[in-house]
C-alpha cells in the first residue's frame, strides 16, 4: 500500500510538472511580443523592452522554462503586471470568497443530490425517478450565469430575500460576507447537483442489484438498514470520485458566478486579468487551480482505501 501511495505521488508530480509546462507554453502561444501585448498599444518600445527584460523574455526559451519551473516549485508564480505584486499574494487576497463559494455550493449540491439520487435508484422507473433524472438533465443544460441572473433579478432585486451583489464592502463582518454568498452558492449548488445526482443514482442501481443486498433483505433487515448500511456504503466510492471531479465544474462555475454577483474572488480576478492582459495572473491561476485539482483527485483515490476494505493496492 505504501508503494501504491508513493507511486501515485510520483505520478502526481509528473502531472504537476506537465501542468506547469502547459501554462508556460500557453503564454508563449501569443502572436508577437508578449511584453508589447501586455502593455497595450499606448506603450513605447522602450517600456516594452524594459518589461521584456524584467520578465526575462530575452533569455533563450529553455533557460526561461527552467527558471519558470524552478520558481514555480519554490512557490513563486511571478509578478502581476497590473498590481505590481507577487501573483501568489494577489491570488491569496482573492481566495476567501472563492473557497467558501465552492465549499458551500458543494455542500448544497450534496444535500440535494445524494438523497434524491438514492431514492430515485430505490424507486427506479417511478415518476419521482423520471422527474429527478429529467430535472438533473435540465439543470446541466442551463448556463449557470443565466440561472444566476434570473435568481438575482427575481429573488434578490425584486423580493429582497438575498443581497443582490457584492461581498458587503471592504470592512464587512464575516457573517455579512457569508450572507452575500448564500444566493450564489444556491445557484452553483443546483448546477453541480446534476452530475452528482446522476452518479449517485447509477452507482446505487449497481449496488441494489447485488447478491448481498438480497441476502440482507432475506435476513429480514429493515429496508432503511439495507439501503443505508449496505447499499450506500458500497455506492460511496463512485460518489467520492464524482465529488473529486466536480471540483473542475465548481471552479468553472465559480468564475462565471462571481462575475454575475460581482464577488471579488479569484474568478473575477482572472477575468479582469484577461481584460487587462495581465498574463502572469492568468498563468498563476491556471497553475494553482490545476494543481489543486490533481491533488484533490489523489486525495479522493486515497479515500477509497478508507471507505472500501476490498480495495488493496
Amino acid at each position, binding site marked *: 500500500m505504501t508503494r501504491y501511495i508513493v507511486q501515485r505521488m510520483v505520478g502526481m508530480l509528473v502531472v504537476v510538472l506537465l501542468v506547469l509546462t502547459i501554462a508556460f507554453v500557453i503564454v508563449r502561444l*501569443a502572436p508577437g511580443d508578449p511584453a508589447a501585448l501586455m502593455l497595450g498599444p499606448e506603450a513605447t518600445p522602450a517600456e516594452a523592452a524594459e518589461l521584456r527584460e524584467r520578465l526575462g523574455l530575452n533569455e533563450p526559451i529553455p533557460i526561461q522554462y527552467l527558471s519558470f519551473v524552478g520558481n514555480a516549485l519554490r512557490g513563486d508564480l511571478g509578478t502581476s503586471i497590473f498590481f505590481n505584486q507577487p501573483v501568489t499574494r494577489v491570488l491569496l487576497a482573492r481566495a476567501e470568497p472563492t473557497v467558501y463559494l465552492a465549499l458551500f455550493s458543494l455542500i448544497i449540491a450534496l444535500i440535494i443530490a445524494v438523497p434524491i439520487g438514492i431514492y430515485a435508484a430505490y424507486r427506479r422507473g417511478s415518476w419521482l425517478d423520471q422527474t429527478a433524472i429529467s430535472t438533473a438533465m435540465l439543470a446541466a443544460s442551463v448556463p449557470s450565469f443565466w440561472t444566476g441572473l434570473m435568481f438575482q433579478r427575481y429573488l434578490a432585486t425584486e423580493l429582497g430575500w438575498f443581497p443582490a451583489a457584492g461581498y458587503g464592502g471592504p470592512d464587512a463582518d464575516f457573517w455579512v460576507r457569508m450572507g452575500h454568498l448564500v444566493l450564489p452558492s444556491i445557484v452553483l449548488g443546483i448546477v453541480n447537483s446534476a452530475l452528482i445526482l446522476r452518479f449517485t443514482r447509477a452507482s446505487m442501481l449497481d449496488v441494489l442489484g447485488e447478491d448481498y443486498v438480497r441476502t440482507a433483505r432475506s435476513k429480514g433487515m429493515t429496508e432503511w438498514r439495507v439501503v443505508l448500511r449496505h447499499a450506500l456504503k458500497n455506492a460511496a466510492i463512485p460518489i467520492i470520485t464524482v465529488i473529486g471531479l466536480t471540483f473542475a465544474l465548481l471552479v*468553472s462555475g465559480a468564475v462565471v458566478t462571481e462575475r454575475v454577483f460581482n464577488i471579488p474572488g479569484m474568478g473575477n480576478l482572472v477575468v479582469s486579468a484577461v481584460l487587462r492582459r495581465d*498574463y502572469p495572473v492568468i498563468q498563476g491561476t491556471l497553475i494553482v*487551480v490545476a494543481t489543486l485539482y490533481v491533488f484533490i483527485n489523489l486525495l479522493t483515490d486515497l479515500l477509497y482505501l478508507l471507505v472500501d476494505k476490498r480495495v488493496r493496492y
Partner: protein
Amino acid sequence: MSASALADEPGFLEALFARRAVLVSLIVFLVILAAVILAPLIAPADPSAMSVRNRLAAPGGDYWLGADAFGRDVLSRLLYAGQVSLTIGCGVALVASVVGIVFGLVAGFFRRLDGPVSRIVDAMMAFPDILLAIALVAILGGSMINVIIALSIVYAPRIARIVRASTLVIRELPFVEAALALGSSTGFIMINHVLRNIVSPIIVQATFIFAYAMLAEAGLSFLGVGVDPSTPTWGTMINEGRQYIDQAAFLIFFPGIAISVSVLCLQLIGDGLRDALDPRIAKEL
C-alpha cells in the same frame, strides 16, 4: 462486434427512438437548426436595424420577442446569433474529435508513446474548461476561429482518452492480429480496423462536446472574453441585456432559453445514441 455493422442493423433507429424524449429532442434540434440556417429568409427584420423609438419594446406586436436597447428585433437577432453559436458548437465537436482521434490512436497503438500522451491528456484535463478556454482566448485573441481552436484544445483530451481506451482493447483482438499477419500497414489497420470499430463512442462523446462547447461559448461571451462583442451570439446577447435586466428581463430570458433548449436536446440525443449503440447499457435504464 463491429460498430459500423451495429449502426446498419434494422433495430438501430427503433432503439434510438425507443424513448420518446430522444425523438422529440431530435425534432426540436432540427427545427432550431433549420430556423437558424434559414434566418435570412424567415427573420422578421434586419437584425442590426435600429429604431430609437422602439428601444426596449416589450414582446408582442411588431416585435414578437421584444426589442433591445437599440430597438433591434430580438427574434431576428436570436436567429442570426444562433448561426454563430451552433457553428462554434459544431466546429468544436469536429475539430476536437479529429485531434482527439489522432492522439488517442497514437497512444493506444504505440506503446512507447502511450505514457507521455496519456500524462499530457491527464494534465490538460486538470484545467477547468472555462478557465483554460479563457486563458487560450486571452492569448490567441477573441474571434470565432480562435474560440473554436481554444475550445477544441479544451475538449480534445476527452476524445483522446476514450479513443485510447477503446484502441487498447481492439488492438488485442484476433482480427487485428490477422491483419498484421496478412501484412497490412499500421496506418491501414489503425484506420480500417480500429477506427471503424470505435466510431460509436466517438459520435456519442462528440454530441456531448457539441453541447458543452455551446455552454462554454456562452460563458466566454458572457464574461466578455469570447468572440468579438459586435458579433451577436446567444452569450453576447445575454451579456448585452444584462444592464437592462430590471426593465427588460426578456432580453436575457430568450437567449437563455435558446441555449438551454439546444443543449438539452443535444444531451438527450447523446444519451439516446449511447443507449442505442450500446444495448448493454440500454437495458439498465
